[in-house]
């Protein structure tokens, strides 16, 4: 009995059960990486649909432009673009870790915030280009 009590009071590290795990930047970024990856995967038929609409002719292309340009279409495309940039930026972080770089806690937080900032900036840039292109009809 004393043995088990001693074990339970031993200050051993616990595995991070999500229900009791205090959210922090590093864990949120990690979960978001998987979440954005899943979203990109499940919305990939939209990419095929876009390619199909071009191959199928002017009418289907116009229909696709109409559908993707609708409010729902733009909503999905906005999250698609953000997910892609997020997954890309955080993916670069993963590649750095693979070669053993950037694993110090302070660096993890610094690069984590960079991922948040750069992914938003790239999304914003994409949509500025999109709306500018639409305006000029290029």
């Amino acid at each position, binding site marked *: 009995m004393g043995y088990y009590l001693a074990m339970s009071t031993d200050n051993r590290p616990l595995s991070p059960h999500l229900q009791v795990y205090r959210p922090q930047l590093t864990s949120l970024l990690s979960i978001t990486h*998987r979440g954005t*990856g*899943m979203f*990109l*995967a499940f919305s*990939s*038929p939209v*990419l*095929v649909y*876009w*390619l*199909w609409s*071009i*191959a199928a002719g*002017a009418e289907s*292309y*116009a229909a696709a*432009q109409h559908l993707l340009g609708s409010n729902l279409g733009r909503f999905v495309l906005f999250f698609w*673009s953000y997910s*892609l*940039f997020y997954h*890309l930026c955080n*993916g*670069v972080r*993963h*590649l750095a870790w*693979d070669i053993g770089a950037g694993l110090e806690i302070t660096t993890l937080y610094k690069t984590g915030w960079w991922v948040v900032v750069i992914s938003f900036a790239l999304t914003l840039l*994409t*949509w500025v*280009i*999109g*709306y500018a*292109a*639409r*305006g000029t*009809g*290029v």
Partner: protein
Amino acid sequence: MKGLRTPLGRAIGLGPAKEGIGHWWWQRVTSVALIPLSLWFVFSVASLVGAEYQTVLDWMRSPVIAALLIMFVISFFYHLQLGIQVVIEDYIHTEWLKIASSLTLNFVAAFLALVSVILVLRVALGG
């Protein structure tokens, strides 16, 4: 128990998907390829917003653009397959369901990649 096989021989081909380090390596190869390819793709499509149909056709008929598009879709769907494979292995613990999900994933990803390549080629090679 002592055996004749070396530690390396026992490790090769293992892992939840029974394919050793191949998965890990190709996930890295496709992610490196997708950095320039996906940036190029998204900004190209953004600049094509509202374009005339003929403009989009001319764009896709350029051999360089068509080749880049094909490289993009192949890397994209390969990376997608490798990524979801890991999610399946993480969350599905019933063996037959895990195998069925993996097979379905492989077929769907390969199918979407092939259809994409054929569509790009149809536009690029079409009259």
